[in-house]
């Protein structure tokens, strides 16, 4: 770890040199990973990143400096550089950056694994990779398994955040992540490819819950059916049941991202983009119907994006992004909160010591309803059920989006029937949230790594939801 007194000295030094705000964040990220191909080891990887990121406000300009040399001289020099370079460009500031008056915390917290990451031996990791390969190969009857790659990563993130407003927050969050990528092949039908991911904060106890071997083998078998027997989706407008995995991705892309206040203000305009949401639309504009409620909550236990205090020292809490269709509450840091005339809701987060904290999602989900899957199906005469996906994208204002189904089925008279190959859900954000006609009651979460910022920083997130029914959708087909 780091000498906290040193961090406090750095903050004091920056203040003495003219910074109106200063923060010093120690961060250590240590990970161990294994990669295998077709049941054989490719290699193991160990990485450690440890350093201090210093952020200052000088004359309304924001400066950031990072170093992995943790002696007093190096930290002092980095702080002085952050101050002097921010000062050098402060004359260009037409609208000086200011922070809100949010209450910041002094706290320590730690996610305690039931089974420690270090107790997960390399032999056990390899054994899991072999079992997955064997089970997938064994599940196929008609298709050949062209290739299967497997990876398991364990990661411990430690932070100490100190700032000039009195915050002192220590945290330790371990995470586990397993991924499998495979390609099946039937010569006369072509190939089908799938990446499956499992991830959470906590310890190795998650592996039992995920049932990785059985889940992946089951998927492989189902995808063989899609590859061998998949038909084109109907051409006419039909009802579509969007599986929870895709719903989770949709809420991340089309509710979470457009409700990031830095995008709304234009700070990410040249990189991750802006938002269809404008400040005056908050609380006044309905993007969907009564079913459309999306929640962002860093405090979900086990969440891949779990935290209790953000990197500005602000306590985390659930935020309703969309509430019964209405744009409700954007994600804020202390800068955007000041611009919006409110208080930060604790969304500032950095993935390594060498990155500035920016507004990030954590665990984002569509609020579950009360319908069983059978109830969602029962009144559909003709429709499509899209359970999983590979290809997706969305435009830079988070309005025009596309998801290509992978494991998908035709629904006829309320029953799941033939598999459907490559159905395309290409909708606007308004189109999706206003066509919802039924919401399942089972909430499931999926891990992801969300990219944003420049330099880009990928942060772990969960996204989730129940299965959701849409009415009158024209389903496309990928080439």
């Amino acid at each position, binding site marked *: 770890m780091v000498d906290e007194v040193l961090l406090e000295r750095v903050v004091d030094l920056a203040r003495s040199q003219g910074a109106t705000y200063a923060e010093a964040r120690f961060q250590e990220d240590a990970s161990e990973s294994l990669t295998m191909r077709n049941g054989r*080891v*490719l*290699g*193991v*990887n*160990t*990485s*450690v*990143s*440890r350093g201090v990121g210093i952020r200052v406000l000088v004359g309304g*300009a*924001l*400066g*950031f*400096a*990072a170093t*992995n*040399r*943790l002696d007093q001289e190096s930290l002092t020099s*980095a702080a002085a*550089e*952050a101050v002097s*370079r921010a000062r*050098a*460009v402060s*004359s*260009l500031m*037409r*609208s000086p950056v200011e922070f809100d008056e949010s209450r910041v915390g002094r706290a320590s917290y730690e996610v305690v694994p039931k089974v420690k990451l270090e107790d997960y031996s390399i*032999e056990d990791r*390899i054994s899991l990779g072999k079992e997955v390969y064997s089970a997938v190969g064994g599940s196929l009857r008609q298709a050949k398994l*062209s290739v299967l*790659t497997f990876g398991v990563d364990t990661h411990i993130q430690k932070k100490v955040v100190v700032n000039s407003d009195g915050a002192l927050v220590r945290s330790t969050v371990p995470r586990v992540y397993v991924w499998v*990528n495979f*390609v099946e092949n039937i010569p006369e039908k*072509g*190939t089908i*490819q799938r990446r499956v991911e499992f991830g959470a904060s906590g310890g190795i106890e998650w592996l039992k819950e995920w049932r990785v071997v059985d889940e992946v083998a089951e998927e492989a078998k189902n995808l063989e059916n899609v590859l061998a027997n998949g038909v084109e989706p109907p051409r006419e407008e039909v009802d579509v049941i969007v599986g929870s995995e895709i719903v989770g991705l949709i809420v991340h892309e089309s509710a979470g991202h457009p409700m990031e206040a830095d995008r709304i*203000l*234009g*700070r990410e*305009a*040249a*990189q991750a983009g802006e938002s269809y949401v404008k400040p005056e639309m908050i609380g006044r504009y309905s993007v969907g119907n009564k079913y459309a409620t999306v929640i962002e909550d860093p405090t979900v236990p086990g969440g891949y994006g779990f935290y209790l205090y953000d990197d500005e020292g602000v306590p985390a809490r659930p935020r309703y992004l969309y509430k019964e269709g209405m744009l409700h509450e954007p994600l804020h840091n202390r800068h955007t909160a000041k611009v919006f005339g409110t208080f930060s809701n604790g969304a500032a987060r950095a993935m390594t010591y*060498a990155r*500035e904290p920016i507004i990030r999602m954590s665990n984002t989900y569509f609020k579950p309803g009360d319908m069983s899957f059978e109830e969602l199906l029962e009144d559909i005469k003709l429709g499509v059920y899209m359970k999983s996906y*590979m*290809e997706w*994208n969305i435009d*830079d204002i988070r309005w*025009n*989006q*596309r998801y290509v189904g992978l494991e998908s089925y035709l629904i006829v008279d309320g029953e799941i029937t033939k598999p459907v190959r490559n159905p*395309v859900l*290409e909708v*606007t954000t308004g189109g999706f949230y206003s066509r919802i006609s039924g919401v399942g009651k089972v909430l499931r979460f999926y891990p992801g790594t969300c990219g944003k910022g*420049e330099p880009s920083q990928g942060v772990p997130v969960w996204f989730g939801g129940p299965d959701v029914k849409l009415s009158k959708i*024209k389903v496309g087909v*990928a*080439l």
Partner: protein
Amino acid sequence: MSHEELAGKLISELKDRFENVAVKVVSRDSMMLKIWNNQPGVLQTWRDIQVSLLLGKQRRVAVLEFRVSSPDELLAATKRVGDLMPKVEESELPIELPEPGKPSPLEGGYDRKVLEYASDPKPLVEAMVSSALSAGAERTAGTLELEEINTTVATSKGFEGTYRRTGVVAHLRTFKGDVSSHWAWGSTTVDTKKLEEVGSKSASFLSLAKTKAFFEPGRYDVVLSPLVVGNLMNYVASMSSGMAVLLGMSFLSRKKTGDPIASEAFTLVDAPRDTLLPGLAPFDDEGVETYNKPIIGQGRFISLIHNAATGRVFKARSTGNAGWINPRPWNLIVEPGTSSFESMVSEVKRGYFILNNWYTRLQNYVEGQFSTVARDIVLEIRDGNLVGYVDRVRIAEKFENLLKSIKGLSREVYDITWWEVRIPTRAPYILAENINLTKPSI
């Protein structure tokens, strides 16, 4: 401790415990100024060292990456990895580092002015922003990055080499009303005129958006800007890695050398020895001399890119593209053609000009099936004229179809690096026929 001393110390400490050891030490002194609403958003500074180790022992492979300050900590970690290795099975791609050669150094690629401007980037930022505002932009956002990178590679076979480079990466998005535009530039040297051009060229497209046009999904001829070409070729080049093929992450996995995979007019080169592009390298991470080479030459698939291990799998030599584990392209060059942007537009009866894209994602890497979304101005072309702008559209295609549909490339090329073009790419405008464009119906 200098890079060379650190690398030497690690090699001498480790070479008796491991049969193959490679060390890479990278130090970075860099500055990035982020701009939004015509003013600085944040000025970021980094000064740090990353040390990476490749360890091979009895056909086992481990990679260690550290951003920490103490060499002793690195050695302690290698002890732990050494103890772990007997428990790891033999790798499918064991390391056998190549015998050291004498890579010829690169002349150029370093500009002292880059560091001088890093202390005071204001004149460069003002040049970018003011040229955009003068050219008609109402609002700008972008980035200026200035960096010096020093890289040392040493191996247990006796190779030791160091090179340094500087880098300037600038991109600016401009806005006027409800349309936006973008341009980018990446180089190893500072050129104020080029930075002004980032602003003025970005803004110049805004004036072409006069009236809004209606878009109907379908197949059209498209003119793609160097920004789009750069983004898509980053994907194609990454899929030329031998490891990508082994992992089922490449549409080239079913191609043989000489197979036609693109229009005859198209050549894509990996160019580590181009010293104007900031991805330059005289040698790779295994100490092998780099060289410029076509991945696709006159429409035909020429070669995958390899490190020593993937080369052995494919019965080929290293192409000087290590990347331990995963070979990587350094700089990319799409060879120019004989046309121009204006003449390409004049050839199109019904189609679109797409300035910029992002979010390229694949449904199936083996099939090369992808889509990507336009994020700035898209202009309708009718009978050879730019007639109006449309909302964001999407290209949904297969890479091979797209490459084979290329009908023209411009003479003029542009050095592009930005958020969506991470591998520096010199690219022309491209005209491609009969490309599938989509958008949502609701």
